[in-house]
């Protein structure tokens, strides 16, 4: 982590929580947790509430689909930490590791529903080019996605265009797969709050 305060600047209670996490999970505390717990009133609190609503609130998209969108946005931003973290959550949510990995390795040929493919392409364009246009939206609607699905996907995209930027800017460490699997289990059981 590039800022020492994000590694070691937490209060006593939070440090005790980190010790508990390390003991129970037998894994290091992920840097994303250190970030959201640092001065949580400034960023972590309001951002966690927003992300929980986007990822676990009512939506026509499944939890797995939304986690896949998060991983896809992160991959488009070339954020290794968030890509691996949310690919692991999508894999857990789907109960099918192949679906998440196929889609992230080649969206064009992956065997997925057209509304999801078209929505992911829209999120990829928005993330890469910072803009989309009415014709892009019409294309996604023509592929079978509803207006509500597009709106919900844009909320996921917002969250992970924030989080993946912070992961890269603050220099999150990328741990091994066991740590991401432990994190995925937590996020599937408890969500983002």
């Amino acid at each position, binding site marked *: 982590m590039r800022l020492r305060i994000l590694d070691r600047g937490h209060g006593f209670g939070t440090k005790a929580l980190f010790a508990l996490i390390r003991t129970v999970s037998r894994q290091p505390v992920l840097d994303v947790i250190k970030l959201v717990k640092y001065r949580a009133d400034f960023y972590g609190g309001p*951002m966690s509430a*927003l992300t929980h609503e986007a990822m676990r*609130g009512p939506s026509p998209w499944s939890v797995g689909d939304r986690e896949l969108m998060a991983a896809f946005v992160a991959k488009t*931003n070339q954020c290794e930490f968030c890509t691996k973290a949310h690919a692991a959550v999508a894999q857990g949510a789907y109960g099918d590791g192949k679906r998440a990995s196929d889609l992230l390795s080649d969206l064009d040929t992956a065997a997925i529903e057209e509304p999801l493919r078209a929505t992911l392409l829209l999120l990829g364009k928005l993330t890469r080019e910072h*803009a989309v246009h009415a014709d*892009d*939206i019409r294309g996604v609607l023509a592929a079978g996605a509803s207006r509500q699905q597009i709106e919900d996907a844009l909320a996921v995209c917002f969250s992970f265009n924030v989080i993946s930027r912070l992961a890269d800017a603050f220099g999150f460490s990328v741990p091994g797969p066991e740590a991401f699997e432990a994190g995925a289990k937590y996020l599937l059981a408890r969500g983002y709050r």
Partner: protein
Amino acid sequence: MSDIKQARASLVRRILEGVGNASPYERRAAFNNTVLDVTLGTLVDKVATHADRVIDEDIAAARESGFSEDQVFEIVVCAAVGQATRQYDTALAALEAGTRKE
């Protein structure tokens, strides 16, 4: 997701208008990617446009130019939320235009 707009507004209001170590002016400039200071502006622009290219030296340079770690933390958060907000607002406008009845 009826609460998303409210949650997003709460986040933006907190980081821009709430108590912080960086001034409201500095946080707003980071959010808008309009920071005038060259060193800090370089970091903010990287966060907004190519966060994967931020390097240790970018953060170190901001610290050496007089910003505390807490100020850098706040400014980087504002830069990230600002860029994501511009993308999101652009996409919502496209959604409105793309679903408008002629």
